[in-house]
């Protein structure tokens, strides 16, 4: 689960990291008030679940409270489009107004879990302020890593080593190591899957400040962080994805026209690959999840149908536990009268297969049954879209 920048920074501050002075504003007037309080040049930053905001006009440097108000007015209530949001952008309901700092260097600091070493790793780079994946690709030597021993946790010496290897003077290594330890403590305490400060800046007066911050909490650990779980901002999701997520369905909107309904993430991806192999493009990724009970199947079907691009549907439920009649009932129930002609290729495996087929046949839906992925490819190719 992503957190907004302002939420991430509040946690950073709680764990002892320096963040710029500032305040959250939901209206242009509030933005002006924050800027008045800060008394100096400020930065107005749109709060959305995406990076690349600078390129989309979501970060503005302002010099007066009036400018802050104007900048906030230009952002609030709009949808911000950045290289990471897709063309529809994300809604801006809040802006963060912060003091502008005099920056000497921009560093990168990130913590994540590395499956190779099965450990938490702290990643740092002197090349902060830019896209870290680009740095990793173009200048891998600038990406420094320290693997954390789970017995003792992150150690100060590792922080000093990262600081020195980033080219910082030894005199600053200790304080930077302290900031890294603080971020590590936050990462562990809040079950983060990613904690990223980019850039972590060194100011001209040698303070180390988190200029931006991005925390992602491990969804699987939210059961022990009810306070954080409550922070999820559903407005930042595609409405269909949000609806699916609330129902426990993994759904990702894509740009093709073949809707697909599958159980299991791996099989769902394989089904998308199969759609592509047939010469089409998937309209979505959809994993209806374990059990595939009728209500969930109906909900999943409805979500697929809400996407206006969908011209045909491929159902691929590999049961064993799943009852085919339940699945058929769920789908039939969810398809409204006016969409009954939508061509569907259905591949079911499980108990009560014949009963399921009978329900489909009785429904009047435009269904073609197949027994394998190979047949599904052929069936998709043979479809005539009305």
């Amino acid at each position, binding site marked *: 689960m992503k957190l907004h920048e302002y939420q991430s920074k509040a946690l950073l501050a709680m764990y002892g990291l320096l963040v710029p002075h500032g305040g959250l504003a939901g209206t242009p007037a509030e933005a002006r008030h924050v800027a008045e309080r800060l008394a100096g040049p400020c930065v107005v930053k749109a709060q959305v679940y995406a990076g690349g905001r600078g390129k989309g006009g979501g970060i503005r440097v302002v010099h007066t409270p009036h400018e802050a108000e104007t900048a906030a007015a230009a952002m609030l209530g709009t949808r911000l489009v950045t290289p990471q949001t897709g063309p529809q952008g994300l809604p801006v309901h809040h802006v963060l107004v912060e003091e502008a700092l005099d920056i000497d260097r921009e560093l990168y600091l990130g913590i994540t879990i590395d499956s190779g070493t099965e450990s938490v790793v702290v990643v740092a780079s002197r090349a902060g302020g830019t896209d870290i994946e680009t740095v990793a690709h173009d200048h891998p030597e600038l990406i420094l890593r320290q693997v954390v021993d*789970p017995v003792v946790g992150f150690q100060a010496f590792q922080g000093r080593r990262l600081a020195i290897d980033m080219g910082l003077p030894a005199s600053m290594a200790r304080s930077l190591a302290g900031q890294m330890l603080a971020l590590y403590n936050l990462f562990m305490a809040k079950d983060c899957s990613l904690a990223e400060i980019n850039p972590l800046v060194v100011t001209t007066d040698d303070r180390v400040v988190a200029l931006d911050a991005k925390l992602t909490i491990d969804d699987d650990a939210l059961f022990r962080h009810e306070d954080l779980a409550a922070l999820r901002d559903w407005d930042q999701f595609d409405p269909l994805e949000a609806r699916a997520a609330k129902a426990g369905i993994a759904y990702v909107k894509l740009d093709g026209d073949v809707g697909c309904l599958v159980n299991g993430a791996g099989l769902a991806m*394989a089904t998308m690959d199969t759609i592509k192999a047939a010469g089409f493009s998937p309209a979505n990724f959809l994993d209806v999840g374990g059990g595939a009970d009728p209500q969930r199947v109906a909900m999943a079907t409805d979500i697929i149908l809400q996407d206006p691009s969908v011209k045909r549907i491929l159902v691929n439920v590999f049961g064993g536990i799943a009852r085919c009649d339940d699945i058929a009932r769920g789908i039939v129930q969810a398809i409204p009268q006016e969409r009954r002609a939508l061509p569907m290729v259905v591949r079911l495996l499980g108990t009560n297969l014949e009963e399921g087929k009978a329900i489909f046949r009785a429904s009047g839906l435009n269904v073609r049954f197949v027994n394998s992925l190979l047949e599904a490819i052929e069936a998709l190719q043979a479809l005539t879209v009305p």
Partner: protein
Amino acid sequence: MSILVNKDTRLLVQGITGAQGQFHTAQMLAYGSNIVAGATPGRGGRTLFDRVPVFDEVEEAVARTGANASILFVPAPSAADAILETADAGLKLIICITEGVPALDMVKVLHVLREKDVTLIGPNCPGVISPGEWCRAGIMPLDIHLPGRIGVASRSGTLTYEAVHQLTQAGIGQSTCIGIGGDQLVGTGFVDALALFQEDPETDAVVLIGEIGGVKEQHAAEFVKARGFTKPLFVVVAGQTAPPGKRMGHAGAIITGKAALASSKIAALQEAGATIIPGPAYIGETVKQGLR
């Protein structure tokens, strides 16, 4: 023969009194698995299915029944505790079906298990089945497997079933099928699975089903290149059409960086000498031709 589980496996089911635990225990018994005990804290003392005694503690279950492997259907918040309890009781094979175990729990648990030389399959996996041994320690459908000499290893549940189904339809039997689990951190990776299949005289070849995300397939490729696995290897990688930066269900199935792309994985495995299956629809066909 087979790897990991066989006729001598004496299986303990943890979380046996839950809905999923009971359902799959019935299925495993129906398949022929030798389930000797169940365990659920606070629910000990009863007997399920007229033959499976339930204990409060794993230690007691092991002491009383000689269980030598365990399959876990416990809630995700208790999974780390249950795995550690099982390892503490001396079992060397733990199969964790549970989905949604926090990643930081697994960082710690895996560190302990590596010290104790315990094999963990999963978490978030469909388990292990050795069809020729009639041992199913998992949740896979009962009727898709065929005893034979091909190993299957996969990160996904239903995609494993799909692969097995295609193999069986093509008349190709399986020695053991392992779902290693969809999470970023799992106990047994592709490399471990390949190493086991390499040593198994009754496995002739392996079908490996990869996915986008992570570097597990690259590790497998390195292992093969280093001659750790020398039998025929057939590979399909799902998610070739998944767009970057989007989370696709599984915790691990998100593309970040080039290594995570299906194309990078396929290239690495091809370079290592594996036969690349052109797509998920062609698993049975490709393996059948390749084994001729």
